[in-house]
């Protein structure tokens, strides 16, 4: 008997929270705890799969409510539509793999220099489960108040996980920076939601839409200010430059599976928020076409800026996780760029807008997969070598073949090389931007920025793979004892790599739901931008609207395979001999480590001329304050007042010497004075 969708969604949350409880109970026994929690996530994943399938099958999605707060007209309303399903499945899939990866990664017996000895892992798995719960809740809840509560709640376990290495001051600083920055961003969202509540009269999404459309008619400035606050808030979480600057500090300190989850899923929810609020609220509320174009171009331009700066910073960085963090900033820019293009084009060219939106969705999933994969691979490298400093690494491909191969897949996907997932997203975005570049010249510039960003991503991707897995090991650093990571860590990497390829060669897998999400979210007709979205299935081929290129990844792949086969066949047929010779080094005989190019040797022109382009933002130092003297009311008011009272008391008390003669004398004097007074008055 199939489980009803609503019920299975609730059970999914129960399973995730149950995982947290399991973690609290079993925390002292790392392996058992890890596998039990992984099982809980797997159960939650199955339930989420079922709920998602139900949601996809029913028009309008899966909607149910769990009670309401009459006081402020908020209701705990769940709505799972296609967009939500895409994000939910991404979160659950990456969550499951990261949890499974954690088991071996945190195993005190096998980890090198990880500081896990004798730790109570309840402090790791319980917040991990809460983080998954929060992320799942964000994409399922439609009531704005509870959406915001879930959103804020999600930030908290992420903070706890970033400061997992609690004795390291850097980790604590990174956690602080993360929490304060996202919190600041959340205030923008909070104020935006409350303004919508005020004008819509209720926290429900529909009321907010109505309120916003009234506001747009009566006070357009306020309406746009609300959207600006909300956008800033979500961009902070999404990791857009400069608000996303918490990423490069947080990632090197967080355990790698957590980095994977944060970069792979959590920051994508920032994009989710922007989609919901801009496409789901703003566009249907009916602002003028001009407003939409301005908004779209601003968002897209900001995205382009983020792409470039993030890419440059990644290219010049030599720490694997920091590099990947900057790469996340860059890729988040890609997502924002495509959302912006969709917003800008929604009235003038709906088909291209849909194309851009689908590009954004594909990109979210693709980056979710390949970024998690790369963070896990960096984690594997650290697990075996104890470092993520690329200058200290090299030639790991022969020792860790699977990690190296999957990392290569991830890097190709990041760089947008077909047939990987990353290419599909980039292709759609570029098409949307370039097709309409005639009408909007700025879009052409953005497209150029995206292409440059793509080149940069190839650059830093090659740097990561090149410095870590190929070349030679640095002198004096024996990496010979390094072996491949255990199976529990290999399998998640393998599955993520497979995902990258699958999304790339099977475009219909994401494009179909992306298109229906576009129709549902923005409440606009699905202007089918893909008239020939080929046979759904393995041999899918897409052809865009108007004059555009077609893309049939599987066909391309088969052709490449055939070509390779022919080449191999020719070499076999010609009995070509393969000679093994040493590399020619201008006649010198140099040891391998002298020939190696360390990470700091990559792209020195970029480093020399562009390093400063990405400004470093530190936490503010609290200056020495001098105001307390002024603000301390005690010092200048109450102490003075008390002093005055004491002075008066002393003056009054002075005659009271305690000697009876003195009192008698006072009385006599007083009586005499009274008599004199009477005599004077009665005269």
């Amino acid at each position: 008997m199939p489980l009803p969708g609503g019920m299975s969604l609730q059970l999914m949350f129960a399973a995730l929270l149950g995982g947290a409880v399991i973690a609290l109970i079993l925390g002292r026994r790392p392996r058992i705890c890890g596998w039990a929690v992984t099982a809980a996530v797997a159960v939650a994943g199955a339930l989420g799969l079922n709920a998602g399938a139900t949601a996809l099958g029913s028009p309008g999605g899966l909607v149910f409510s769990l009670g309401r707060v009459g006081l402020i007209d908020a209701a705990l309303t769940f709505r799972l539509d296609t967009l939500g399903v895409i994000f939910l499945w991404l979160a659950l899939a990456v969550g499951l793999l990261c949890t499974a990866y954690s088991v071996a990664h945190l195993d005190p017996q096998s980890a090198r220099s990880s500081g896990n000895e004798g730790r109570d892992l309840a402090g790791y798995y319980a917040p991990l489960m809460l983080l998954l719960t929060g992320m799942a809740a964000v994409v399922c809840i439609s009531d704005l108040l509870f959406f915001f509560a879930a959103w804020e709640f999600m930030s908290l376990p992420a903070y706890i996980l970033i400061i997992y290495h609690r004795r390291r001051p850097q980790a604590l600083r990174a956690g602080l920076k993360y929490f304060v920055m996202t919190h600041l961003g959340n205030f923008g969202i909070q104020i935006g939601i409350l303004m919508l509540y005020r004008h819509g009269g209720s926290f429900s999404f529909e009321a907010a839409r109505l309120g916003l459309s009234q506001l747009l008619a009566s006070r357009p400035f306020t309406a746009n200010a609300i959207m600006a606050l909300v956008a800033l808030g979500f961009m902070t979480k999404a990791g857009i430059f400069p608000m996303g600057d918490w990423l490069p500090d947080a990632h090197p300190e967080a355990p790698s599976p957590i980095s994977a989850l944060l970069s792979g899923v959590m920051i994508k929810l920032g994009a989710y928020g922007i989609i919901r609020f801009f496409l789901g609220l703003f566009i249907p509320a009916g602002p003028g076409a001009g407003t939409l174009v301005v908004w779209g171009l601003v968002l897209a331009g900001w995205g382009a800026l983020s792409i470039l700066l993030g890419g440059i910073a990644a290219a010049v960085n030599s720490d694997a996780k920091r590099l990947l963090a900057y790469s996340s900033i860059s890729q988040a820019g890609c997502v924002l760029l495509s959302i912006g293009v969709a917003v800008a084009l929604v009235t003038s060219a709906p088909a291209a807008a849909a194309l851009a939106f689908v590009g954004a969705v594909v990109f979210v999933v693709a980056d979710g997969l390949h970024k998690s994969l790369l963070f896990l691979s960096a984690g594997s490298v650290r697990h075996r070598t104890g470092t993520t400093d690329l200058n200290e690494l090299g030639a790991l491909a022969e020792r860790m073949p699977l990690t190296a191969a999957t990392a290569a897949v991830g890097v190709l996907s990041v760089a947008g090389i077909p047939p990987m997932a990353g290419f599909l997203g980039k292709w759609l975005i570029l098409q949307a931007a370039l097709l309409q570049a005639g009408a909007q010249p700025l879009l052409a510039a953005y497209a150029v920025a995206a292409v440059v960003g793509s080149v940069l991503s190839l650059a830093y991707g090659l740097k990561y793979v090149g410095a870590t897995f190929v070349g030679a090991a640095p002198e004096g650093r024996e990496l010979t004892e390094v072996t491949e990571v255990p199976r529990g860590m290999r399998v998640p990497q393998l599955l993520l790599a497979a995902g990258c390829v699958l999304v790339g060669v099977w475009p219909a897998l994401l494009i179909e739901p992306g298109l229906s999400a576009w129709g549902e979210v923005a409440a606009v007709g699905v202007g089918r931008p893909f008239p020939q979205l080929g046979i759904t299935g393995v041999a899918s081929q897409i052809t865009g609207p108007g004059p555009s290129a077609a893309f049939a990844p599987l066909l391309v792949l088969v052709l490449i395979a055939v070509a390779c086969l022919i080449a191999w066949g020719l070499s076999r047929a010609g009995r070509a001999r393969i000679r093994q010779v040493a590399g020619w080094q201008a006649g010198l005989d140099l040891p391998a480590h002298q020939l190696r190019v360390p990470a700091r040797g990559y792209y020195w022109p970029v480093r020399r001329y562009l390093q400063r382009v990405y400004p470093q933002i530190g936490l503010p130092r609290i200056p020495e304050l001098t105001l307390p003297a002024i603000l301390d009311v005690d010092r200048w008011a109450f102490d003075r007042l008390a002093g005055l009272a004491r002075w008066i008391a002393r003056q009054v008390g002075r005659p009271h010497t305690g000697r009876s003669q003195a009192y008698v004398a006072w009385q006599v004097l007083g009586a005499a004075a009274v008599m004199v007074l009477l005599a004077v008055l009665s005269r």
Partner: protein
Amino acid sequence: MAMMETVGWQWYAAGALLLPVLGAMLAATQKGRGADTFGTLGASGALLAMLGLLATFSHAGVAAPLRATWSLMPWLPGEAGEFGLLIDGLCMILLIVAVVIGLLVVLFSAEYLSPRNREHVTEDGKGRYYFWLLMFLAAMVGLAMSPNLLQMFVFWELTTICSWALISFYNTREANAAGYKALVMTGAGGVLFVGALLLAYAFAGDFGFDALARAPREVAVAGFLMLLVAAWAKAAQVPFFTWLPDAIAAPTPISAYLHAAAMVKAGVFLMARVIHGSYIAVSALPGLGVGVAVAALVTMLIGLYFYFLQDDLNRLLAFSTITHLGYVLFGLGLGAAGVWLGFQAAMLHIMMHGFAKTLLFLVVGGVAYATGSRSISRLSGLGARMPWSSFAFGVGLMAVCGIPPLSCFWSKVLLAGAVVKLGGGVAMLLDVSLVIEATLALFWFLRVGQRVFFGEPSAAADEAVEVPRPMAAVIGALVVLCLLAPLIALPFLPPQPI
């Protein structure tokens, strides 16, 4: 049900008021464990009576307040001489806070006042301690149930005396000065309360919460301002806030009670009563509500400023209390300005802040118990030695800073919603200030929390051990309450008076 009919709600109310007094009397005669026993019994009695009241009240509902008065001063005309009981939503919120936290503080104190306490190695004077603490509890119960301003004033002054005695408990020079300071500053506020009472009697003929509303407009404004200043002094608002940070000379459980449940909450409760009682008149006065809110905001920002200068954890928490009472008065001000949601948010915040702040104080008490120090600069890395305490501190910190699903999030969201509902340029300013306050407060508290509980253990922290079980259990109860508080308080939020 049968029980409910035979035992009237008046008996429950009387029990909540008198059982702690009885416990106080008995505990005063005892020493050591005997005092613990009677103290616990008295506070538990109050809790049971309150639960009975709660059950009755839930049947009556928030729309139908329970009221009973007896004419105890027949020489005064009309209602002026009446004393009695008034149980409504406002009362229940303060009652729950005062009684539940009172009991938890009593339970915590039993272990805290012991020779094992590294900060104050003594258990002398336990009888005296419980006497004043339970009298304090009873005074708060009486204040919560007062049906008019005169009766409220009687209990109001009683809380002042109790707090004086408890702040000076250790009898050191510093403690005596702090107690005296609290007595003088809040007592001076009490004088203005008397002034307002006289105005009410002269112009309206009785002491009801709506008395001032029935007086001429100028008198009403004057009386309202007098009560406002009295409430400021009691609730440690700018410029009368300086007694509260000094009051940390008290034993830490007392600080917890003083800051979270009693004393300062009496001040904001007075304002809530008056605004609720004479809502129509108050909301008709232009600028008054917004003025109260702006003054509260000034307090919040000044309190925030002092966060950055503190080294003593309790002092830091004291300034946080000042700020959070600013939040409450801020909401009450918005309520007075016509946005009833603000009033409800303020009432919610009284309870949300109560549990969270008690938790923080008691954890700091536990830290001082285990290490002998409350200095931020001397403590670090406690988390490795006191995991439960550091977890609880984290929960309290997140609750106070308003991270969902913990308590203060809900009241802060409602408060922000009320600001937004107010609308206009002032609201924009208030909004921005709220954001600044909340972010900086979170930043600083997080920084302090990280410093004290994470990192390498310092010398003072290295030999610490986790607090004993009774204290840990009390802390655990408060952790749960931080999570459940919104559900407890929600049914009692008063609807807008018409």
